């Protein structure tokens, strides 16, 4: 999965935040809609689309979507 595709998939886990607010440099934890349900959505997406397993702590440790993408590439 490319970074652009990852950003798009990431954005799809959000119902209320417009897609144009997502870019590789988005600080996702600062988004108003970020919360426990979106956390579960991203974990599920990474499992289903990338076959990788991330934790809530991993999501808290990264800041931008690109940083998270790079982290997932390394596991």
């Amino acid at each position: 999965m490319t970074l652009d595709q990852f950003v798009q998939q990431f954005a799809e886990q959000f119902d209320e935040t417009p897609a144009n607010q997502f870019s590789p440099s988005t600080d996702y934890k600062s988004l108003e809609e970020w919360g426990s349900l979106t956390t579960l959505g991203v974990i599920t997406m990474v499992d289903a689309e990338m076959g990788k397993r991330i934790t809530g702590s991993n999501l808290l440790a990264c800041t931008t979507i690109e940083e998270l993408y790079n982290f997932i590439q390394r596991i």
Partner: protein
Amino acid sequence: MKAFIQALDYSLPEKVLTNADLALEFPEWTEEKIMKKLGIAERHVAAEDETASDLAVDAAEKLFAENEINRETVDYLIFCTQSPDYILPTTACLIQQRLGLPDSIGAIDVNLGCSGWIFGLSLAKGLVLGGMAKRVLLLTAETYSKYLHPRDKGNRTIFGDGAAATLVGCDGIAEIGNFSFGTDGNGAENLIVKSGGARHRKQLDDLQFDNFGNPKSSDYIYMNGAEILNYTLDRIPGLIEDVLQKNGCALEDIDLHVYHQANKYIANLQRVKMKIEPEKYYCCFERMGNTVSSTIPIALKEALNDGSIKSGHKVLSVAQGLGYSWGGVMLQF
């Protein structure tokens, strides 16, 4: 000899907590959002003076009445709960007296969460097949509402109180097939009430709020949702495959999947991951939420009532619960 489920019934507290009630307390949490994300419209909550054993007794009385069961024929009682009336004595002993069951019976408590019905059913089957009992009354009941912090939006939305009664004997409506079990205590901290037991007898008064504003306290239920999700992703596919293999079946042989009813989010996740057609995956959480160890028997009862389960159907039931503890069984209706 074989063991069968003979009858099922359930009981929910009268008091209802609606999504509108929750949205009033948590303005960022709308009725529509709860329904869309979690598929739960309402959950029942025990009254201040109402306990899990009260609900279990009511479920048993309904089962006896509806099926014209002579309670003198029950010779073993298993009560699964994490909300006992007292630290001691065993709540099953109190229920024996309240239900007027013979004093010649065995009566035990089992402490398990969402996997409790599967494990309780396995014990009931073992008692029947071992010739130690002819008719086992398995009661599952939970009142997690008593352990929830008032500001715990997520868990107050998901969990509902309730009880179920399952009668197991030598004949009946569904043959109990082979089981698969799993346990991993490494997950204990991810769904826990730390204080109140012997390890931390007194309240620890360590309330904090996490990054999402959810309370985290040793004195109330704490759930690490992300870890519980990963646990489900890790364990459920293997569990399903193991139950199928132990019963000589393939996924396509199953007429209806009646799994632990956590919520719509987890249900969809499991269904899609296992490639199960929607019409073969039974959902029963809209009117009661996650009733912990009673979700499967409640769903089975509803599926029998609405015709989703018919005679001849093979039903697969699996549950993942705190502990961690997970298990599954095949039922031949």
